[in-house]
């Protein structure tokens, strides 16, 4: 029988987390489908559950000295409705394309990241935002960059006794975020490929900062340092012309039911150009 914990105090949650191997549930939108899929083929067992949705103070997006703190219970809908600068436009665009509104109203950004699916819609933009992860356990707190947090296909650096408490997004003066998702239908679709980026320009319109990431094209979404470097100093209006196939050397797309690897590689280039074409 699956034990179900829904503590109302963080220290209780951490004690449970430290004491047992539990599945952490916030919005539930990943845990229930996975449970349904296993049960359908005769495996009704489930890890004990630590439901963190009753923990206080984790549903807020707050401004901090360095930027913004996004609590681990912040949903996609909260993000869509929040007053945030253009830096977050990519995150908001991603939020609008996650599932339907039903899912957006319950699912959390942090949950999307912790599930660490290669097709997680929130992950590329978190990489582009240079976000970091606030982690806590009874042993103490630590901060890890999202890029280090994601260690592989559906694996993370989170230890068995730890919880992700929040995400931190640093300021970027004049930063503009963007997001492009490709799927085979309009709503409710798992990405074939997606790109996300954050770009800042100087007063002359030249790119001073470029952080570009690609999702669903490798086991873990990744930044494209070669492309980012090539974009620095380029006039914003010329950015699309910078994108070249060799910028994608690090990706390793696969053939699956949604698309072929060769297509993904080519589509990624198109999506990157579309992303850089976008203005705000």
């Amino acid at each position, binding site marked *: 029988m699956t034990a*179900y914990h829904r503590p109302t105090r963080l220290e209780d949650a951490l004690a449970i987390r430290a004491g047992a191997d539990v599945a952490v549930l916030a919005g539930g939108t990943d845990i229930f*489908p996975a449970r*349904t899929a296993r049960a359908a083929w005769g495996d009704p067992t489930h890890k004990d559950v630590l*439901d963190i949705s009753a923990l206080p103070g984790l549903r807020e997006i707050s401004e901090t000295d360095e930027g913004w703190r996004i609590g681990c219970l912040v949903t996609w809908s909260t993000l869509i409705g929040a007053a945030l600068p253009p830096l977050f436009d990519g995150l908001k665009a991603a939020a609008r394309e996650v599932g339907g*509104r*039903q899912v957006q109203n319950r699912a959390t950004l942090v949950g999307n990241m912790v599930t660490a699916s290669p097709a997680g819609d929130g992950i590329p933009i978190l990489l582009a935002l240079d976000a970091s992860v606030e982690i806590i356990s009874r042993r103490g707190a630590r901060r890890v960059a999202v890029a280090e947090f994601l260690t592989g296909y559906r694996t993370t650096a989170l230890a068995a006794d730890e919880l992700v408490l929040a995400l931190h997004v640093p300021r970027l003066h004049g930063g503009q975020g963007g997001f492009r998702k*490709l799927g085979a*239908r309009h709503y409710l679709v798992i990405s074939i490929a997606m790109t996300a980026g954050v770009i800042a320009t100087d007063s002359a319109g030249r790119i001073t900062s470029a952080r570009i990431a690609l999702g669903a094209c490798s086991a873990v979404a990744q930044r494209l340092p070669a492309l980012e470097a090539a974009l620095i100093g380029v006039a914003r209006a010329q950015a699309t012309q910078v994108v070249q196939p060799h910028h994608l050397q690090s990706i390793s797309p696969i053939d699956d039911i949604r698309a072929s690897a060769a*297509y993904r590689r080519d589509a990624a280039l198109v999506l990157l150009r579309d992303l850089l074409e976008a203005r705000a």
Partner: protein
Amino acid sequence: MIDIAFTLNGTPCTVAAPPFAPLSDTLRERLGLTGTKEGCNAGDCGACTVLVDGAQACACLIPSAQAQGAEVQTVEATQGEVGAVLARLRAAFLAHGAAQCGICSPGMLMAATDLLLRNAAPDRAAVRDALGGVLCRCTGYAKVLDAVLDAAPQAAPAPEAGKAVGAGIARLDGVAKLDGTDRFGADEAPADALWLRVVRSPHASARFTLGDLEAARREWRLDAILTADDVPGLNAFGIMPALKDQPVLSDGLVRFRGEAVLGLVGTREAVMAVRDSALPITWHPLPALHGTAEASAAEAPQLHAHAPGNLLIEGKLNRGTPARDIANAEGRFTTAFVEHAYIEPEAGYAQPAPDGLGMEVFACTQAPYMDREETARVLGVAEELVRIRPSACGGGFGGKLDVSVQPLLAVAASKLNRPIRIVYSRAESMASTTKRHPASITARMSADAEGRFTSYEFDADFNTGAYASWGATVANRVPVHAGGPYRIPNLRNRARAIYTNDTPAGAFRGFGVPQAAIATESLVDDLAEQLGLDRWEIRRRNAIGRGDTTHSGQVLHASAGLPECLDALKPEWEAMLARVAAHNATSPRERLGAGIACMWYGCGNTSMSNPSRMKLTLSRDGTLTLFNGAVDIGQGSTTVMAQICADALGLPLQNFRFVLGDTSRTYDAGKTSASRQTFVSGRAAMETGLALRRRILALANAGEDAVLALEGTQLRVGAARVIDLATLDADLEAEGRYDPPTTALDENGQGTPYATYGFAAQIALVSVDTALGVTRVKRIVAAQDVGRAVNPTLVLGQIHGGIAQGLGLALMEEFIPGRTENLHDYLIPTAGDVPEIAVHLIEDPEPEGPYGAKGVGEPALVPTAPAILSAIRHATGVTMRQVPVLPHRLWEQMR
């Protein structure tokens, strides 16, 4: 189990429930609010959408523990702002025909309520965004969007006596579909029912042996573990009268992944707790044959003793002698398994009759009388001892023609002698029930210099999967229709159904004809191109019409409106071509394309008797009751039969009561399939109405045109006569029957396979992002000869829904056993994928049909996919011969 306190539809409520149980389950099973539907339990379909603290959410993704302290609103809400919005939406859904089967309607209503509470006057895009998370398989979404946008819905006025046919009235069974009270297969069961869970093969081909089941039964605290040995009658079912090839429970050899092996019976908690891997089943996997090429290879193992070469059946049509001509086209085409994806997974219950002999089965179905026959055989009892009570059917499309849960439930209820219920999971439904046949087609077509078609050849292998199901129909329906609705003097058509170790393929809207049309219509475009003819023009020149002879040698004496369909589309076709040319001149990447396709479709079973029979009674207490055995699976037959019968009798619809589809109370009205209900059962309903009218007129000695009126027991006949029904010796009763006239097909496929045919043409406008290979359908215009639109609202609903399914077939739907057994990997169109649709109804009356009507449901789907492919070709220059046209496939062809 914990106590959860929350506000439910405005009222405080406390329920004891497992904290990890989905809220949808707690609402349905512990609080009895079955208006909230479960279609997938994975957040993929949105049928379970409720409001939590005013925001829409999938109740299947919410742990019940999270309801603590929340405000939850469901489709049953009547109070406050939510109740008011729901009331308006219900009226609008009724008026617009936005609910068909009704299984997604609660989810649609709650998603729309969420929107309207935030935004009282949304635009269409906002409605689409709000409803994007709810899948509908029936309506094509257009009417749903119209309904949500209609702030002041007006119901169609009730037609007066004699004016029901032709009126676009709201469906008569609509109210229950919109207030959550309609009873689908999972919504009703006796309180003391035990649960049945089926253990299914994870292997596509394997032998197995069973160990100590009694020990397992005790260990898991089950009431029983059923095996093949527990089937009291014949452990076999199947559609073909002489070939019952699928076991209820496998006797040791499984032929597809998902085949039923064991039945676990016990409390719900007990059957759901069992780990399949802990059961004493020892598997011996065997090589599996996937696809027709593997299964027809010389060295392939034989899957069934009766089928050498794994050939189930082969059908032919030969006429004239095909030869090459001035223009010649040829191609190889492949289509995928397509899943019906009705939003209601199979469910129901069985209970032994109080007399200890009979068995009653309540379940979703399209074919109650065939279910009765199959269930009785499996039980080894007379058919009369089995009663099938169809539940509301949450979508069928052919997938609920075969039995699924019925024999399993009956075997379990018979063995345990108590009520047994079952609800298939989405994965179980997808893995174990039938699909559209994948086809591998080679076809050739020739035309003379004027573009007249002269020859056609078609050779196709259809993957019928592990068991026959409706595979036999490959042999007759497909060769008859393959050449398309054109005058072609020389044809040679071959179609084979081949057994494999894949999921059984069966009936699915259009049965094999949509696959064939993809090939044929592509070749027509080839010929047009070779001859420099417009694609509309070549079709118009060859369109079969009144007085022409079909490929099976049948002369079409009436109701053959394809030329009129094409003529209706001509102005829009030309406008579409102009729009495409103007756009593409300045848009190298986003290309538009226009496409066109035609179809024909024989209504009713192929060359087989398929009668319907109905009964109408006028009781001495003044109650007028139509006993209608036709199962309404959302298409609206309950309403259509009533409209027809009312006009035949000459009384208004308000006078009617109905007894629907119950094998113990209604006559056999055949299956809801083959686009036959309006045509065949509709004619029976008309004959029934006319028969009662004749009795009344004779009783009153009144003339044929006497006007009837019924008030209480007073039946007014004409101006002068009144019959007091209370004074009669007996209730008035009349019956009507109809069986469409057909003849058998000879060895060359020649004969009269159908009494009438539906015809249609569609044009499609698509845009293709040529850099990404992504196709969006922007507009479809359909013209369909329906004989007579008995209820134009319902007819439009069928056409919209058919188009949505055709779009899915063309662009996204591909069932892969073991890989796409859910509704996030298997994609069906959402509210954002279906384009604007315009429809021209052509009414070329069918003399055999009731008031000229003929079938509508399947024809709507057939031309859509080929029209979209034609448009993609126009946009890109690439001819796609494989569906679905996933972005990467189009991209590859464009390289």
